[in-house]
């Protein structure tokens, strides 16, 4: 466990309770504080009272563009909060996106994408990379 990460707070937004639980387990095991919300609107409400160091957002919540809309909202609050978008899209539609190039990042308001299912090393690796920028 990394004790020194206890003052870093990560917001996890997903409409599936089990995805939230699992990410909370993984992130807390790595020593982060975790706050969860079940959708775009509860997350926006939460953001009125707290500012996370990083946000992990599911792309497909109740509305198809819920994840995009929330990323945009977070970036408007503070451009420097890194946003990690979780996608189940690739597996279901074969449609792939990435947020590597500047052009892609300009319309996908996210700093990185992570496809489901989420493995521990991948998640923690991405989180560390985003926090260190």
């Amino acid at each position, binding site marked *: 466990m990394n004790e020194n990460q206890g003052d870093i707070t990560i917001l996890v937004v997903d409409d599936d309770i*089990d995805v939230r*639980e699992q990410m909370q*387990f993984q992130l807390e095991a790595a020593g982060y504080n975790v706050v969860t919300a*079940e959708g775009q609107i509860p997350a926006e409400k939460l953001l009125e009272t707290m500012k996370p160091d990083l946000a992990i957002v599911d792309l497909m919540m*109740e509305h198809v563009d819920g994840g995009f809309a929330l990323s945009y909202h977070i970036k408007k609050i503070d451009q420097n909060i890194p946003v990690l978008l979780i996608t189940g899209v690739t597996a*279901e539609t074969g449609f792939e996106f990435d947020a590597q190039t500047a052009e892609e990042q300009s319309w996908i308001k996210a700093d990185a994408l992570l496809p489901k*299912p989420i493995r*521990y090393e991948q998640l923690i690796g991405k989180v560390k990379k985003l926090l260190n920028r």
Partner: protein
Amino acid sequence: MEILNVLVVDDEPGMRSGIERVLRNVSFTLPDIDKEVSISLTQAEDGEKAMEMIAAQRPDLLLLDHHLPGISGMEILEQVIGDSAQSPEMLAVMITAYASLETAVSATKRGAYDFLAKPFTPQELKATVRKAARHLILQREARRLAEEKRQVRFQFISVLAHELKAPLGAIDGYLNLMQDRVAGDQLDAYDKMIGRCAARLDGMQKLIYDLLDLTRIESGQKNRQIEAVDFRELAEQSIESYTTLAAQRDIAIELYVDSPVPMTIDRGELEIILNNLISNAVKYNCDSGRVDITCDAADGAVTITVSDTGIGMAPEDVEKLFGEFTRIKNSKTQNILGSGLGLSILKKLAQLNGGDVSVTSEIDQGTTFTVTLAQHQPIDEAAE
């Protein structure tokens, strides 16, 4: 208004203009299928021209002279109709100079829909066109309905696949966490993960049972067994199977039925109806809530009401309630598992049994489902 494009192929100018005169500005109604049809006419003086025109724009109906210079009427038939997989929506009527049986047989073999023997009267021409139009429009309607059905089926299967994948993904995720020993030596964290896996498996199992119910209902009721049953007895059994679940959350279930209510119905179907109603009333209740069940028999109908004191629904959610896989998602329902098929099944069964379902609901006050059923199902019908 449907427009029927008719192409007349005849080498005699007199015949072409005669047909044109009869069919120009003709429109007719097909009352049995509630359609009005008008005709748009084009002409070709020989087979070569006709093939060109058909290639450019397929007409709906071909009035085809048997004797043509160059490509014959039969050859055109063979090429454009015989290949019927490619031209399911074009009909040909053969115009023959003499009504010989031989010509008729060989044209039919090549896919002609009908004949007109020269000379024919304007009435005969109109009647033939009308008959062909009716056939075409019915064919189109049937195809459109089949396509619609295919779409609905496809959508159902994609949503179903998603609903089956979600719990698998969740369980897979927990297994990975446990394999990685993410919680270290905190054993209660693993218990929690196992508990969630079990809950998602339960949900998946319920979905599969519901699917089987739905399939059974939709595949015709070959296995229906209409028999004499007592509503009260079945209701008591159903309540019994939910008492443990209800007791865990201190929910009281009360049946307000003083005497037996005889019904003639498929026992399994009534059980599904009752189980759906009662399990919903328990699931969507609040702790220490109530479930009240009443039943009235009058004028050959049985009216069942199941009221809960639960979380209720907004009016806009009530409207969506009976669709397949529509589950109301909000912070109050997020931990409640369901297949999203239960109410769709309930409605289908109620309608199958000569009744229907209605709902009244108020947020945080509760929901009342009212199901009406015919008290006695006709036994003969089920034996079919």
